């Protein structure tokens, strides 16, 4: 223990402090304070982001090398904070509509966020595991937040049991890696491996277990089975949260893990990720076609999008990682926008979740319908919207690394998945109109939808600024 330098993790410490303070306020003020606490948490996330921007992003190891702060961690944390703010802002009205507005909701979101931020800056298997568990435990509780709903309970039970299984696999993998290297520090693992001529099978098996556990967390095929059920069963605002934020954190963790400690084993993990990526693309594209529940469709859509992100990782270059970061930003925006619509699908005070309920949406609420159409076009990758560029950068990186097959499959999957995105548009614009949705849509949702749509449309004019900063962050991993 040399010196206790806590400044680099000031944003996390701030969030922990307000999380505990908000819990105390909630305990004394009761559930009527939920609204205030939600908005205060959003402001807290913004303050944390400001603290993060002000802090030094040069490579720093703190707390006995347990954590590392570099520009990759910095930019991933910014993405996480963005996702947290947006998804919490979207939740407030829904919590009241479903009568589950309890003050613990923002507190749990804050602690999940703290776990995610530590995940992307962990530099040790021990801190990785602790951060991952802090995140997962908060998410399990959030999935079960609708206590009186049977589906919510089922979703949470599935998520919890499979999550516990994946934690077990993660620990087993870490123990094999520790058994070989004798250390759980990322840099020590990297140096030890790079001094070897070949990677021993014992280590590879350990790495496979770790990758399997993380594939579960990002819901990549073949560890995706829980996703549609959990997305469907959890309260919709929690589904939005699940779709937007934890993926970003787990992908950030995966990238650090692959490019720092497992760098010398690139040949080994590349094959694994290659097939996980293909599997996610195929399942994400084909399984959603026969779905009618819009939350399930977006579950499969998120599986497919993880497939694209993995292509960028398999490329194995700084350009690939940079393209994944840009892709994640666009993914956060598109998912947030789509969930604004899904959260607004209410008739007579009850949530409806079927795609066919969107019929005639363009007549009943043309502005939102056109915004949704823009988001769906962007999701299916049609230029000049941002979603096209997200995929373009990833395919570019893949082509540069001569992954022609993967890039081709990615484009084909994107064509297939366009079917179910366009089907939603067709239902909205051309099907016989049914009753309109309730029209009391919160200002926050409208604002998010407006910002997202603007971002998707104007991205074409400013792609370089984002891409450059993402590339800069990506190089800090290599």
């Amino acid at each position: 223990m040399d010196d206790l330098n806590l400044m680099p993790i000031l944003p996390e410490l701030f969030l922990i402090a307000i999380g505990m303070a908000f819990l105390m306020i909630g305990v004394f003020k009761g559930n009527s304070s939920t609204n205030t606490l939600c908005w205060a948490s959003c402001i807290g996330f913004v303050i944390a982001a400001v603290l993060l921007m002000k802090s030094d992003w040069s490579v720093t190891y703190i707390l006995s090398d347990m954590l590392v702060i570099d520009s990759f961690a910095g930019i991933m944390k910014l993405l996480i904070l963005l996702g947290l703010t947006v998804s919490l802002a979207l939740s407030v009205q829904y919590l009241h509509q479903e009568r589950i507005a309890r003050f613990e909701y923002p507190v749990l979101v804050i602690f999940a966020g703290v776990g995610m931020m530590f995940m992307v800056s962990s530099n040790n298997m021990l801190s990785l595991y602790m951060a991952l568990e802090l995140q997962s435990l908060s998410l399990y509780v959030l999935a079960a937040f609708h206590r009186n709903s049977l589906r919510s309970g089922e979703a949470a039970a599935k998520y919890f049991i499979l999550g516990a299984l994946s934690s077990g696999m993660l620990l087993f993998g870490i123990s094999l890696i520790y058994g070989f290297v004798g250390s759980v520090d990322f840099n020590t693992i990297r140096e030890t491996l790079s001094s070897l001529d070949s990677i021993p099978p014992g280590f590879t098996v350990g790495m496979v277990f770790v990758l399997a556990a993380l594939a579960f967390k990002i819901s990549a095929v073949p560890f995706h089975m829980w996703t549609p059920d959990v997305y469907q069963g959890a309260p919709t605002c929690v589904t939005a949260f699940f779709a937007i934020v934890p993926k970003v954190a787990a992908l950030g963790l995966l990238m650090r893990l692959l490019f720092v400690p497992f760098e010398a084993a690139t040949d080994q993990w590349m094959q694994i990720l290659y097939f996980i990526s293909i599997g996610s693309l195929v399942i994400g594209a084909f399984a959603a076609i026969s779905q009618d529940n819009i939350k399930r469709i977006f579950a499969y859509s998120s599986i497919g999008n993880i497939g694209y992100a993995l292509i960028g990782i398999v490329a194995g270059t700084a350009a690939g990682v940079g393209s994944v970061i840009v892709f994640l930003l666009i993914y956060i925006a598109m998912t947030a926008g789509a969930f604004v619509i899904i959260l607004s699908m209410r008739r007579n005070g009850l949530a409806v979740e079927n795609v066919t309920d969107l019929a005639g949406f363009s007549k009943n609420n043309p502005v939102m319908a056109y915004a949704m159409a823009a988001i769906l076009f962007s999701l299916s990758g049609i230029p000049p919207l941002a979603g096209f560029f997200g995929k373009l950068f990833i395919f570019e990186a893949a082509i540069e690394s001569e992954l022609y097959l993967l890039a081709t499959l990615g484009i084909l999957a994107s064509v297939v998945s366009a079917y179910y995105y366009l089907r939603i548009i067709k239902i909205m614009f051309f099907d016989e109109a049914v009753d309109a949705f309730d029209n009391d849509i919160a200002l926050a949702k409208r604002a998010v939808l407006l910002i997202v749509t603007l971002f998707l449309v104007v991205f074409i004019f400013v792609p370089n600024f984002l891409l450059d900063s993402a590339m800069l962050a990506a190089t800090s991993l290599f």
Partner: protein
Amino acid sequence: MIVQAFAFYLFAGILLTSALMVITARNPVHSVLFLILAFFNAAGLFVLLGAEFIAMILVIVYVGAVAVLFLFVVMMLDIDFANLRKGGMQYVPLGIIIGSILLFELVAIYSYWAFAPDVSQNLDMPLSSFGDLQNAEALGMVLYTDYIFAFQMSGLILFVAMVGSIVLTLRKRPNIRKQIVSSQHARKASDVLEVKKVTSGTGG
């Protein structure tokens, strides 16, 4: 050495036998008792390895808390274990196949096991670097200093677990009659008792 080898085979043998009994015993209470026996023997193995702190923790946490909790659940809740087991036999062949594949794979890994060449230099906290200190003292030296992050994070995880269990189980029931101790104490005999003089023979 001979004593140690003898102790190892004794502990390991009883551990395996009792572990087998845990899953084969018909009476669930017997299963839990065998589980406790298994924990004690595992603790014995840890003592042989020189990890006396983990041995004690195993006994305190697993025997003292977890196993007792199991016993409570088994004895207090009316679960028909025979019914739960019904139909379990049909999974045995599949279980054996998958188990033996896993066993084969693990044997394959461990028989080719090699350590990294400089593994002893990689160790973060080898016990030898603490001189003559006992386990518990050595842990105390590093737990709150080098591993403060992991320690604090486990604190946060427990905190979230506590919040979560309250969120999921606490229900406010407004119509229930509750005992309010302070108002009970505040009652005075003069507030509630009225002494009436009754004259004899009037019946009132």
